[in-house]
C-alpha cells in the first residue's frame, strides 16, 4: 500500500529522487567532527522557537497596557504556560550560542573561502535577521529592561544623517516607545522567523550545491565521502541529545538565568533603571558602541563590527587550506579574536566607568585590528609556510585534491569526445 502511494506521488513529484539525492545518498565528507553539528542544531532551535512562539502568541496581548499582565497570565494561569515561556526565552539564548559556535567553526577552519562565500553571506543575513527578531521579541514582556533596551536601540537610528529624528519617530509610531511600538514589534517578531526560514532554505540549497566543507579544507575524494543518512543523521541526533540535556537543565532548573530581574518591573517611560544592559548576545557590539565617544561614530562602528565579517573571504588571502588547522599564525589570530570578543562582552555588561571605557576602547581597537591585519598576515604566512615546506598530511590532501580534479576533467573530456 505504502509503495503504491509513493509510486503514485513519484509519478507527479520527485519525492524518492529528492530523498535519495539530498539525504540517503547525499555524499558527506567522512571526517566531519562535532563542530559540524551546529548547523543542524540551529535548525532545531529555529523550529523550537517557532513552535513555542506560536503557542505563546495565542495567549499574549501586544498592548502597552495589557502586555505585562498577559505574561503573568501565561506564567500563572495558562496550562504549561511557564514551560512555553521558558522554552522560548531560553531558546533565544540557545539560538545565539549555537549560531556563534557555528560561525566560530567557519572562521576557525577558514571555510568561508571559495566556493562557499555565498554560504557565509547568507549566514550573515541570517545573523542580522536573528538579531532583529531577538531584539523585537525582547520588547514584548514590556518590563523595564525591555522598554529601555528598545528605547536605546531605536534611538540608534537617530544617527541617520539629516532625517534621524523622523526615522526614529517613524520606527516607533510615537515620540517614545509606546503602544504603537509594541504592536508593530509583535507583528514583525512573528513575521521575521518566516523570512529566516526562507533564508535558511537558500542557505541549504547553496550547501547542497557546493557540498559540506570539512576540517581538511579540501574537497575529499569520492571514496572519502559517505552517505548522509544514516551516518550523519545519527551523529546529528546524538549531538542533539547532548544539546537537549544542557538546554533542559536551564529550562527546568535555571530558567531565570537569562532574564534580567529588572524586567520584572513594568515599563515606566519616565524612569530609566540605574544600570541598563542589553541581552548577553548583544554585549560585545554594545561595548563597541560605547567605546566610541562620538554618537554617529559609535553607531557606525557597531554596524561595521557585524558587517565586517562579510569581507572575510577577501581579507583572507592565503591559499593554504584548512584554516587554523594548517596555519599557525591564523590560529593565533583566531584565538586572540575570540578572547577579545569575550573581553568586549564583559565590558558591555559593566557600568561605564573610566577604566571600563579604556578597556572597551582597547578591545574595540583589537577587534578591528584583527580584520585589518589579516590580509598582510595571511599573505606572509602563506609564503612562510610554502618556503618551510608543507607537512606530509597537507601534501597528501593536495595530491588527493589534484587527482580528484584531474579525474573530473578527464571524465568531462571523455564525455565531450563522446558527443
Amino acid at each position, binding site marked *: 500500500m505504502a509503495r503504491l502511494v509513493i509510486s503514485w506521488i513519484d509519478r507527479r513529484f520527485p519525492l524518492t529522487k529528492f530523498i535519495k539525492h539530498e539525504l540517503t545518498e547525499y555524499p558527506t565528507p567522512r571526517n566531519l567532527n562535532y563542530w559540524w553539528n551546529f548547523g543542524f542544531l540551529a535548525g532545531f532551535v529555529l523550529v523550537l522557537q517557532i513552535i513555542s512562539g506560536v503557542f505563546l502568541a495565542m495567549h499574549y496581548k501586544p498592548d502597552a497596557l495589557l502586555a505585562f499582565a498577559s505574561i503573568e497570565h501565561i506564567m500563572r494561569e495558562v496550562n504549561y504556560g511557564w514551560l512555553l515561556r521558558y522554552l522560548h526565552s531560553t531558546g533565544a539564548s540557545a539560538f545565539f550560542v549555537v549560531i556563534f559556535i557555528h560561525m566560530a567553526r567557519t572562521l576557525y577552519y577558514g571555510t568561508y573561502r571559495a566556493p562557499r562565500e555565498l554560504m557565509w553571506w547568507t549566514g550573515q543575513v541570517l545573523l542580522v535577521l536573528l538579531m532583529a527578531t531577538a531584539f523585537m521579541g525582547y520588547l514584548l514582556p514590556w518590563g523595564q529592561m525591555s522598554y529601555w533596551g528598545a528605547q536605546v536601540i531605536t534611538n540608534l537610528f*537617530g544617527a541617520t544623517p539629516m532625517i534621524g529624528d523622523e526615522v526614529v519617530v517613524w520606527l516607533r509610531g510615537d515620540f517614545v516607545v509606546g503602544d504603537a511600538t509594541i504592536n508593530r514589534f509583535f507583528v514583525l517578531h512573528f513575521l521575521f522567523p518566516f523570512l529566516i526560514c526562507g533564508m535558511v532554505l537558500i542557505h541549504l540549497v547553496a550547501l547542497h550545491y557546493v557540498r559540506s566543507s570539512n576540517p581538511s579544507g579540501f574537497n575529499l575524494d569520492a571514496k572519502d565521502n559517505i552517505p548522509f543518512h544514516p551516518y550523519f543523521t545519527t551523529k546529528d541526533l546524538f549531538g542533539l541529545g547532548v544539546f537537549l540535556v544542557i538546554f533542559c537543565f536551564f529550562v527546568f532548573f535555571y530558567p531565570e538565568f537569562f532574564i534580567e530581574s529588572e524586567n520584572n518591573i513594568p515599563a515606566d517611560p519616565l524612569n530609566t533603571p540605574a*544600570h*541598563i544592559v542589553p541581552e548577553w548576545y548583544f554585549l560585545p557590539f554594545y561595548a563597541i558602541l560605547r567605546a566610541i565617544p562620538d554618537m554617529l561614530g559609535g553607531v557606525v562602528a557597531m554596524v561595521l563590527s557585524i558587517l565586517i565579517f562579510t569581507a572575510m573571504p577577501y581579507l583572507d588571502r592565503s591559499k593554504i587550506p584548512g584554516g587554523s588547522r594548517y596555519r599557525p599564525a591564523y590560529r593565533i589570530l583566531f584565538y586572540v579574536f575570540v578572547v577579545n570578543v569575550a573581553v568586549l562582552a564583559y565590558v558591555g555588561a559593566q557600568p561605564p566607568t573610566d577604566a571600563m*571605557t579604556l578597556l572597551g576602547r582597547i578591545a574595540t581597537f583589537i577587534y578591528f585590528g584583527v580584520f585589518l591585519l589579516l590580509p598582510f598576515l595571511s599573505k606572509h604566512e602563506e609564503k612562510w609556510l610554502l618556503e618551510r615546506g608543507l607537512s606530509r598530511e597537507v601534501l597528501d590532501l593536495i595530491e588527493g585534491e589534484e587527482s580528484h580534479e584531474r579525474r573530473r576533467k578527464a571524465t568531462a573530456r571523455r564525455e565531450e569526445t563522446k558527443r
Partner: protein
Amino acid sequence: MSEQELEDRERRDFLGKVTAAVGGAGAAAACWPFISSMNPATNVLSKATTEIELSMIPEGETKTVSWQGKPVFVVHRSPDQIAAMSKSNSRIDPQPDEERAKKSEWLVVVGICTHLGCVPNKTDKGWSCPCHGSEYDLSGRVLKGPAPKNLELPPYDFVADDKLLIGKT
C-alpha cells in the same frame, strides 16, 4: 502590425524600458501608504500639550512631567544656581544660560538624554545618565559625553504667573 514594425529593435527596447520605468515608479509610489501608516497616528499627535501649576514646585526642586509621553524636567532654580549657570558653560555644545531659560528661575528641558534616549537621573550638579555616563549641568547643558548635544528645550509658555504650558499652542 507590419513586418517592419516587428523588426524595429530600438523601438521595442525603448517601449520595454518605458514600461519598466513606469511600472517601477508605480510600485514605489504604492509603497508610500504602507510606510506612512507607520508614522504616529492622529491620536498620538493630539497629545500635544501639558499644563503645570508652578506653585507646586518649591525653590530648588525638580518636577518631572510627561509631555507627548516624554519626560520633561521643570526645575525651580535658586539664585545661587542661576548665578553659577550664567558663569559656566558646556565645552561640547556651548550655549549661554540666558538662551536656555525664558525665566531664569525656571528651567524647562526634555528629560531625554541626547545620546540614546535614557532618562538622566537628578544629581546635585544637574543630571547624569545611567546608560552611558553622560552628564548635564543645571542648565541642561552637556558636560560629559557621549551625548553630543544639550538637553532639548521643548516649546513652552508661561500662560499665567504660575501656569506653564508645554507644547505648541
